[in-house]
């Protein structure tokens, strides 16, 4: 055992720093015992207690710094003393100035007077409370969280309505406010078309198509999927229409929703009727008459909604590239499919994209099954087993319970895709790939190996497997739209130019005997 002593005369450190240094010194490898302390009587007493007090230390003055190290060998003592010297040297460059972190909406709102919006995505059990706090602080709210009760939704929306605030959501994935996409959204051009959407991917699709047709967006207000239910009564869609009507930059308004409750549709259309601006109404699977009676512009598909909006906003319809269906391609695919390859299997990340393709298929076929079918007979009893034409919204709670959304984690969809690809009755598998803010950084890339594998397997079995892909995104989006499309095409995937065309192509590919 070896002990080394260093005494630095007239060297002052305060006791707390020295305690901290001592603690670190005792952690140096090989050190049996280390003491770094000023030469006070009390510290000498401590040294005596641990058997380290030498005459040299006894003689140290209050203003002297004592360093004592005990270790197994002289070498270990020496290296420890060097390490201790390092401890005294200042750890250079402290971190950059800390950004002030707030813990509550109240404190953040009080300290950031320019804050005007809260984006809330906490667990549903806590979400309504946070949304209420935001509204109390005069913040508009984008409530991404799901699992918020309908009673809470009504209370929040009524409160927001009284205060003249936006209350988007719950379960609202998409909004573009002041040209800033919130949560999931695409980079679309600024323009003169305002959107109020009760459907996330439906709103994304229409905004992207408007961009594609040369138009642009003022605001995209997401209301959350239940806004047009009987109970909620369309509070936010009605407020949204009013705000867009008052917005000088907005020339045309587009409304998007799954079919509303009849009483709510009546209220919404009454407001459409009194609205001074043209309103395009795209209620998926909805009927034309009521919309026309209200003086609205009816759209049967998302693409039609976008075309009508850009034309009403000033575009010359004759100059639009409407991306008509490619009939020679349809013939070509039909020729490749064997007679037993009769069915479409749609595997979707986007709920509204699924809905649109499904409704287009239902126009033509009876046996269209889905986990989100309204008709009870055609709602899948077992979502893990496809039947005839099957369209799956894999972002629905059935699939995401306890798992991330397929836009973020694609593993469930990959597994299901490989299953469907083995089925000899399948003619076409339709899949969406959603780009933009909030989405996976390479949605095509993660699916590609499975596509290549399935294609090869089908070829081995002497069967053509038609895979139809739709990439939802603009030329301004990340990841790059063209690169994503090219990767799919290189793997032999057919590309649809819109959600509408994806649905139409799929249903036509498998049409028999025409």
């Amino acid at each position, binding site marked *: 055992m070896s002990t080394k002593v260093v005494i630095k005369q007239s060297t002052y450190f305060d006791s707390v720093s020295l305690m*901290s240094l001592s603690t670190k010194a005792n952690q140096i490898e090989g050190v049996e015992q280390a003491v770094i302390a000023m030469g006070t009587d009390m510290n000498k007493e401590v040294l005596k207690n641990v058997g380290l007090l030498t005459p040299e230390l006894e003689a140290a003055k209050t203003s002297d710094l004592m360093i004592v190290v005990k270790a197994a060998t002289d070498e270990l003592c020496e290296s420890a003393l060097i390490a201790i010297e390092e401890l005294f040297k200042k750890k250079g460059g402290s971190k950059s100035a800390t950004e002030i972190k707030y813990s509550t909406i109240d404190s953040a709102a009080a300290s950031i007077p320019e804050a005007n919006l809260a984006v809330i995505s906490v667990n549903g059990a806590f979400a309504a409370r946070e949304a209420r706090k935001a509204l109390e602080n005069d913040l508009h709210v984008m409530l991404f969280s799901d699992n918020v009760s309908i009673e809470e939704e009504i209370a929040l929306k009524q409160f927001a309505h009284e205060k003249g605030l936006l209350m988007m959501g719950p379960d609202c994935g998409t909004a573009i406010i002041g040209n*800033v996409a919130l949560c999931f959204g695409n980079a679309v051009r600024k323009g003169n078309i305002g959107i109020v959407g009760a459907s996330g991917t439906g709103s994304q699709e229409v905004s992207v198509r408007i961009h594609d047709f040369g138009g642009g967006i003022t605001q995209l207000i997401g209301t959350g999927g239940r806004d047009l239910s009987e109970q909620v009564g369309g509070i936010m869609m009605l407020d949204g229409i009013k705000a867009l009507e008052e917005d000088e930059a907005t020339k045309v308004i587009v409304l998007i929703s799954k079919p509303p409750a009849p009483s709510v549709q009546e209220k919404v259309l009454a407001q459409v009727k009194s609205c001074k601006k043209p309103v395009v109404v795209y209620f998926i699977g909805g009927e034309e008459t009521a919309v026309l009676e209200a003086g609205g512009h009816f759209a049967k598909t998302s693409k039609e909604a976008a075309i009508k909006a850009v034309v009403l906003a000033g575009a010359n319809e004759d100059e639009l590239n409407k991306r008509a269906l490619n009939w020679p391609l349809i013939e070509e695919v039909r020729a490749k499919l064997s007679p037993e390859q009769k069915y479409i299997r749609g595997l979707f990340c986007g709920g509204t994209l699924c809905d649109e393709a499904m409704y287009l298929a239902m126009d033509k076929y009876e046996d269209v099954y889905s986990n989100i079918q309204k008709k009870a007979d055609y709602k899948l009893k077992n979502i893990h087993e496809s039947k005839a034409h099957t369209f799956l919204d894999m972002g629905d709670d059935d699939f995401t319970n306890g798992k991330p959304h397929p836009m973020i984690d694609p593993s469930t969809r990959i597994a299901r895709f490989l299953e469907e690809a083995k089925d000899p009755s399948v003619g076409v598998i339709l899949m969406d790939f959603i780009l933009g803010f909030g989405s996976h950084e390479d949605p095509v890339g993660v699916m590609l190996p499975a596509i290549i594998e399935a294609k090869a397997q089908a070829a081995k079995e002497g069967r053509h497997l038609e895979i139809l892909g739709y990439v939802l995104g603009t030329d301004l989006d990340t990841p790059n739209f063209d690169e994503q499309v090219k990767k799919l095409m290189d793997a032999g995937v057919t590309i649809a130019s819109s959600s509408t065309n994806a649905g139409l192509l799929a249903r036509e590919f498998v049409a028999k005997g025409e």
Partner: protein
Amino acid sequence: MSKINELFNGKIHAINVGIEFFKDDIIKQNANASHLDWKPPGGGKPELIKALDRLENAAVAEKIAAANKLAVERIINSQPMLVGFDQAINVVPGMTKTTILHAGPPITWDKMCGAMKGAVTGAIVFEGLAKDIEEAEQVAASGAITFSPCHEHNCVGSMAGVTSASMFMHVVKNKTYGNIAYTNLSEQMAKILRMGANDESVIARLNWMRDVLGPMLRDAMKIAGEIDLRLMLAQALHMGDECHNRNNAGTSLLIQALTPYILETDFTKEQKREVFEFVASSDYFSGPTWMAMCKCALDAAHGIENSTIVTTMARNGVEFGIRVSGMAGNTWFTGPAQKVIGPMFAGYKPEDSGLDIGDSAITETYGIGGFAMAAAPAIVALVGGTVEEAIGFSTTMKEITTAENPNVTIPLLDFSGVPTGIDIRQVIQTGILPIINTAIAHKDAGIGMIGAGITYPPMEAFEKALLAVTETISQ
């Protein structure tokens, strides 16, 4: 223009709660976003969330806001003055020859931790109630001694807080509200009673404090009249103390103020020299003084109906207790005392340390100590090592406090006031606990101080308080 249309035309500044990349995406689009450091309120416990909801009912919230405003005003406007020194038996309410006051919430002899037992037996010997420590243990267990929390006698006590009849006390009077607070004299830093040591040297020092130091300070203050402690505290913070663990500046200021009057007393030159040497032997001399100052201000804010402001945080080495203004009197809410994490004297290891102990958390309750770490960069070693971390502690405490005290400011934070008025609702809402910097006593009796560091109260105490307060207020 409607609020929605203002939003359309303004620049987005979002507050993001939840998934962090939503904030990043907003910033990528050249808008502003601030991400909250959010935790589920009440740790996600439904009964606590329900309680918070009940307290947020507009009518209830208004009552609480008014009560808390009053409580915080009283803390801030209190002007505690040092007006004298005297023996506990002469001044402390309810003190008897066989009373021993202790730190923290109520505790019985059999449940006391090592340090407190050591201090109690030392005090019994010091008072002549037993001839030695062994006999003192029997006396303590016999029921002949009345044990009571300092806080229930207008007192505070450092560490074990053990206070007996003949010990000399600071007498601190609230010039604004008239209430009085008391605390013991500092034994300085060594093997000392308040840390649980009780050998002959400890008793000898206590005798000298009773016979020389105490009387000299008493006589000096008779001449001095009064000393404005709040003013002195503010100065000490500007000189780099946080007045719980670092008292270098405060001690200099205090002894500087006392010296002329000490010189005028009738004690001998040798005795005066002993006193000055004793004060110089450690920087802790003014430590208890600030505790009494804080106690004096906080007592003025205790017992305001509907207030959710914390007026006491104290620990007895076993339990941590808090008192809340709206729950008048001696209603304690407790949870287990925690470990103190920090550097230790050579030769000691974390397993040697006793649990958090002492009434000194009264300083944090007032807004100094751990709450004012940004004022004391010299002792950042306690909080992990960097000045930035020390600043972080002071700014974070604003999340759970109601006001900033304009009378006590921190230069490094642009002279903003110390975070003042801990609101139990905010503690439960944010999950942020008050930070306390404190000394570490050995777990066994008779040894004393072995380090210093950081600790927190148990959340349990605040949870219990919130539930009780909710029942009381929202009726």
